[in-house]
């Protein structure tokens, strides 16, 4: 194991994190916050430690990074970043407890958006900005950002890219991974800018507009208001956020092609069609149900349905209504949605559409195979046969995901949560959604979860964000055997 190279890159990640922290000071100054010292201490401290690591291990620059190192750098990087990222909250005193601060920060970086804060509005502006900033950094991924910045990573960069951008399809937009990373970030920044402007038009102030853009594009879900987006009570804002949550949940490769004039790329992609179709069906059903059973207007029913379904499906976690209050069966309905996720290659979490889609096709073909035992029936995706090893990898992933979901639910009920809250919070954290069901549902938060449970959920968030294997592999014996 090349520990020098690992520490060298982690040093770089810390410098970046520190710089991002320092940038939050702008809002502390703008809104006269009392959090300037907290940012100065933690920002300068973090970048200095990063800089020292970077200098001490500079000889490791350009040394080989293999797959193993890639996994370790990414997992450790995310942990270390979450640790340092929680400093501003602790130093300022807004979240004095380390467990809570770490939970809040890793929930930010993994774009989960699960909060332990009962009164968000009490936070000074700088901290609010930093809290949403963690979403934005984690959404496209800090490793992808580093690859875009560091020119010398080369093949090593690819190992890192594969460890952070997990999933069945890793489209390279350009022959070189650095250029691919640059393009992904450019699209990301572009959409963030557009959304911020649109939200400003909707009457939000600058801080709220930026924070909600970060929250929706990164599919994170931290809001600056206690009532989340419901606070604004504005159809315009709701629709803008709906659109950008949808964009955040779509594969960024497709955005890239669309921005290069091939708008048709969206509907040529079979996963996108599935994603769109799935949303349309669930929204249609929910809208009709709300319209006929609750005394809401058709538009309001449609808006509530779309916003909440997209918020859960894309793993954002903003709320404009308490879906559990609509009807008892909606708890089950949303528990199922919690396990879905949006498209691969997006900023969303969860199992992802493509995996269900492939397994579904595989399952249906199995019936045909029983009737025609000699038929050659490959699973097709986008018109091409998918190799069997990919199908079995997807099956293994989904199985592992469900096993962890089961074990996790058990652990949380053991710690004292009722079954609905336990299952809901495990599903919501693993899929990086945020609000779950019951105790941790859309109108409450995670402050009631015992400390041990918070640590366990933090672990699940990271597991979910890095799509299981990158984290799990570090616990395997084969990984450490030279």
């Amino acid at each position, binding site marked *: 194991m090349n520990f020098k190279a690992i520490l060298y890159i982690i040093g770089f990640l810390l410098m970046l994190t520190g710089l991002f922290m320092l940038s939050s000071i702008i809002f502390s100054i703008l809104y006269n916050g009392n959090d300037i010292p907290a940012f100065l201490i933690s920002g300068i401290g973090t970048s200095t430690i990063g800089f020292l690591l970077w200098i001490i291990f500079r000889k490791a620059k350009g040394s080989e990074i293999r797959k193993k190192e890639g996994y370790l750098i990414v997992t450790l990087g995310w942990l270390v970043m979450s640790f340092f990222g929680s400093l501003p909250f602790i130093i300022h005193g807004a979240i004095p407890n380390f467990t809570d601060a770490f939970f809040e920060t890793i929930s930010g970086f993994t774009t989960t958006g699960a909060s332990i804060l009962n009164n968000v509005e009490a936070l000074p502006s700088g901290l609010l900005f930093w809290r949403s900033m963690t979403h934005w950094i984690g959404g496209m991924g800090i490793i992808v950002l580093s690859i875009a910045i560091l020119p010398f990573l*080369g093949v090593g960069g690819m190992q890192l890219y594969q460890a952070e951008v997990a999933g069945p399809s890793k489209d*390279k937009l350009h*022959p070189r991974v650095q250029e691919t990373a640059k393009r992904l970030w450019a699209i990301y920044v572009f959409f963030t800018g557009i959304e911020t402007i649109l939200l400003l038009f909707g009457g939000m102030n600058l801080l709220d507009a930026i924070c909600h853009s970060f929250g929706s594009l990164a599919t994170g879900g931290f809001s600056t208001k206690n009532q989340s987006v419901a606070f604004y009570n504005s159809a315009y804002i709701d629709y803008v956020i709906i659109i950008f949550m949808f964009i955040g949940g779509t594969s960024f490769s497709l955005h890239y092609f669309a921005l290069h004039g091939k708008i048709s790329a969206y509907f040529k992609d079979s996963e996108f069609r599935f994603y769109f179709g799935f949303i349309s069906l669930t929204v249609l059903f929910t809208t009709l149900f709300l319209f006929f059973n609750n005394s809401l207007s058709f538009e309001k029913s449609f808006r509530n349905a779309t916003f909440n379904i997209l918020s859960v499906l894309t793993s954002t976690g903003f709320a404009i209504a308490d879906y559990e209050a609509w009807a008892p069966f909606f708890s089950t309905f949303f528990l199922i949605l919690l396990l879905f996720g949006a498209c691969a290659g997006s900023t969303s979490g969860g199992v992802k559409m493509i995996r269900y889609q492939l397994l579904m096709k595989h399952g249906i073909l199995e019936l045909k195979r029983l009737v025609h035992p000699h038929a050659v029936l490959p699973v097709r995706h986008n018109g091409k046969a998918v190799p069997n090893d990919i199908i079995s990898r997807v099956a293994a992933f989904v199985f592992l995901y469900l096993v962890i979901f089961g074990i996790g639910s058990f652990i949380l009920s053991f710690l004292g949560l009722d079954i609905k809250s336990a299952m809901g919070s495990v599903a919501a954290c693993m899929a990086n959604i945020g609000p779950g069901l019951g105790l941790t549902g859309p109108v409450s938060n995670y402050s009631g979860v015992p400390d041990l449970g918070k640590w366990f959920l933090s672990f699940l968030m990271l597991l979910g964000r890095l799509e299981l294997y990158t984290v799990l592999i570090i616990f395997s014996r084969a990984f450490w055997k030279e």
Partner: protein
Amino acid sequence: MLIVIAGMGSVGFHLAKQLSKESHDIVAIDADSEKLTYAGSLTDILAIHGSSTSIQTLKDAKIEKADLLVAVTSSEEVNITTAILGKKLGAKKCIARVGNAEYLSSNSGINFSQLGIDYLIYPEEMAAQEIVSLIFRTAATDVLEFEKGKLSILGLKLDKNAPVIQRKISEVAHEYTSVDFRIVAIHRNLKTIIPTGNDKFLFNDQVFVITNPEGIEMSLKLAGKENLKFENIMILGGGRIGKRVAELLEGTMNVKLIESDEQKSIDLADELKNTLVLRGDGRDIDLLAQEGIIDMDAFIAVTEDAETNIISSLMAKHLGVTKTITLVDRVDYIPLTQTIGLDSLINKKLIAANNISRFIHKGEVIAVATLEGIDADVYEYTAHPGSPITKQKIKDIHFPKEAIIGGMIRNNEGHIAIGDTQIHGGDKVVVFALPGVIKKIEKYFH
């Protein structure tokens, strides 16, 4: 530069690896997804699965934007078709690998550039040429010739009794001022260094020296060697390389060629009039003994199988053959074979890849070569009038430490470079460089 490489066999893979390190954008096409995945996991490339003769696949590879298309699959037909299609679809330059000398000959009557193929490479021919020059320069482990021998780089292993052992380079240079040579690199303990005047020569060093024709004799003497005249040659393996080497040597030397395949050996005997063709297994020591391996001056092992070549060369060396030349096409074996005492190695894949890379380097590269088994490349550049390299004397231009200017060819005459040398526009300059500095060097010639 956007470079599309069709075929991720060992030539394609080596090329992709080398070029992506130099930050070119590489798109690789192969019909074998396993090979692609392997290449894609070790190099920074965009891998496209499919046949390179499919128009759609070529379009997916952005062929219309490609600066260069290199077709190096194992099939000649596929390569030629790919290059022709690629050119029509917009690739600026196309190179195809062939396996037949007919294509290269000037009286083939076919104008390949009209078809869209700018350059054909035939690695076996290049390998055969390199073997032959090694046979004529018997004392050297490596020979690279520039402009028909006006300048050559020789690799020399220092013997125990070499007069320069334990002496500094600057001392030796001082003593032999009349001789034109320059030490460009020393390969020691599997590492290649670009020496300064203060470095000492040690026993068993592999020294690379650039010299003009007059300096060759003296360079050999200083290394404790003398050039022997070879008479008896044994070649193992009657493939394309073996056959070509026999063709080139059979007029001047006694050549014996061993081939295990019956039909092939009959065909070879038919075509090679002055060569004694033997049928048998080259690892069979009785056969070798019977055919007088002890009296051989050189043993050339060029079968398809790297292991056979290595084992039989070791056997020949053991039996006292002066010089062995071994074809090792597995790049990963190269460092290993050096430590077990083989003389000269030939790798046709590296040769092919180097020949292609000269199309890629900017700044008028005329030739690129890799010395087998050491980590360095040799480039031949044309110095443009007004380019930075011509502005000052060599010692004043701050040339990168990882590279060295060996010499230049001016008015058809080879000159060795020293600190006071001034390069003129139009000179052909030979540069010896460690990997990764090519970009820096290019600036001097651009």
